[in-house]
């Protein structure tokens, strides 16, 4: 067996050679993850903001449920999504199983509670500061949610990042509903699992390096943006 450094060298060789298979897998991973995170933000941010800003019967229970759902096991989500999308399931006629759309659905189920629960906490902190001023100005419920989401935008960026981190590194759900089909549903994490089991460690490690690089780049960009927001007292 080759040494770690030899495998690492070959992995970097694959990356530098801009291997077409590698690019395809990275592209699909980013497409699936970014789409799932975007959908999760569209659903989860207003939901979290509403729970954070409004008082209603059952609010405490809603917060408990949201927080609990943050820890959803990916394989369970994958199984539920599989049952819904399989031929016998309610969404079976759509024929989405083993497509990138199925993977997006699974990741959205996984990430939305994270976005909603974390944004609830962020928005609640902002709302504590704004509530009396909003009451004084006569701000309506929808305007409150919109204003809170806008004013908390830089803090909510971190929330979206948490969702991205969860989705991009996830393997259990996407492998169940995606099937890890070559050139169709193969993403970075499922490929790493598969190629490692096959002993093709160069490709697996190359994808691992790319995955880490993406995580570092996205977090670095978000941190830079947040630092400028802090300078402008927007956080």
């Amino acid at each position, binding site marked *: 067996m080759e040494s770690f450094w030899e495998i690492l060298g070959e992995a970097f060789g694959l990356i530098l050679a801009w291997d077409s298979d590698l690019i395809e897998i990275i592209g699909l991973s980013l497409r699936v993850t970014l789409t799932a995170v975007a959908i999760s933000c569209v659903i989860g941010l207003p939901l979290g903001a509403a729970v954070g800003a409004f008082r209603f019967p059952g609010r405490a229970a809603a917060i408990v449920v949201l927080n609990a759902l943050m820890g959803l096991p990916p394989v369970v989500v994958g199984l539920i999504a599989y049952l819904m999308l399989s031929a016998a399931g309610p969404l079976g006629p759509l024929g989405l199983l083993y497509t990138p759309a199925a993977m997006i659905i699974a990741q959205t189920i996984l990430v939305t509670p994270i976005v909603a629960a974390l944004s609830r906490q962020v928005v609640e902190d902002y709302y504590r500061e*704004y509530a*009396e*001023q909003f*009451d004084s*100005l*006569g701000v309506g419920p929808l305007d409150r949610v919109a204003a809170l989401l806008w004013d908390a935008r830089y803090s909510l960026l971190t929330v979206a990042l948490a969702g991205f981190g969860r989705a991009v590194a996830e393997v259990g759900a996407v492998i169940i509903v995606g099937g890890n089909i070559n050139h169709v549903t193969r993403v970075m994490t499922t490929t790493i699992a598969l190629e490692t089991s096959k002993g093709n460690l160069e490709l697996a490690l190359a994808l691992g390096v790319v995955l880490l690089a993406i995580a570092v780049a996205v977090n670095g960009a978000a941190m830079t943006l947040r630092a400028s927001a802090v300078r*402008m*007292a927007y*956080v």
Partner: protein
Amino acid sequence: MFDAAPDTTAPTPLLPGESPPSALLRARGLRFDAGGKRLIDGIDIDIRPGTRTAIVGANGAGKSLLLRLLHGLIRPTAGEVLWEGRPLDREGRRNQAMVFQRPVLLRRSVLGNLRFALAVRGLAGPERKAREAEAMERSRLGDLANRPARVLSGGEQQRLAVVRALACAPRVLFLDEPTASLDPGSTHAIERLVAEAHESGVAIVLVTHDIGQARRLGDDLVFLHGGRVVETGRAADVLDAPRSEAARAWLQGRLYLDAPCRLDA
């Protein structure tokens, strides 16, 4: 003009033949209890159009709480607040504005803060632009229009909070210690804005710890102690010749201790 217990009420002098204008805002039997204590106890108040009222008293007297009750930010335990004779509702509150001790500014530019308040009031297009321009000119913050509001100095932030409130064209402006911990220059700028608002017909209700400010900005004065109105009247009269021991002690800077009114007392 304010009505408290008969022995402490000083009526606002009226010219011969003059009848008192009807109250814009009227509070009757206002009471507020919290944590087993009666924090506001049976306050009756009339705020008439275009008047200037200073509310003073020691810390914990209930001044800020009273302001919040009058503005409808807090529901009273008992009693009622009426706006033009009807229970104060959202519509009535749209005719009021409040400036808090610590300005609550959105994480936006100076102009963004103004725009938000005006948009909430349903203003758009040329009318909103005209109000924005007027507010920027009035506040003398025009050069800072695109600066993030929260990086302004404390005085500038409070000036923005005042013009934002005035841009909503209130008929009553509540001010809760608007110049606390501001330097004299900033205090003067805020007082100028308040005076201009009053000249344009806005009724002013000001909570302050500053005796000089109460003289400068108050025609009427209400002295609160332990959640009760203990003395009212023309500001100069109360400040020059207080009749209650609590007001005398406060004006002389003496400690005046008595037990707070407990519900079980």
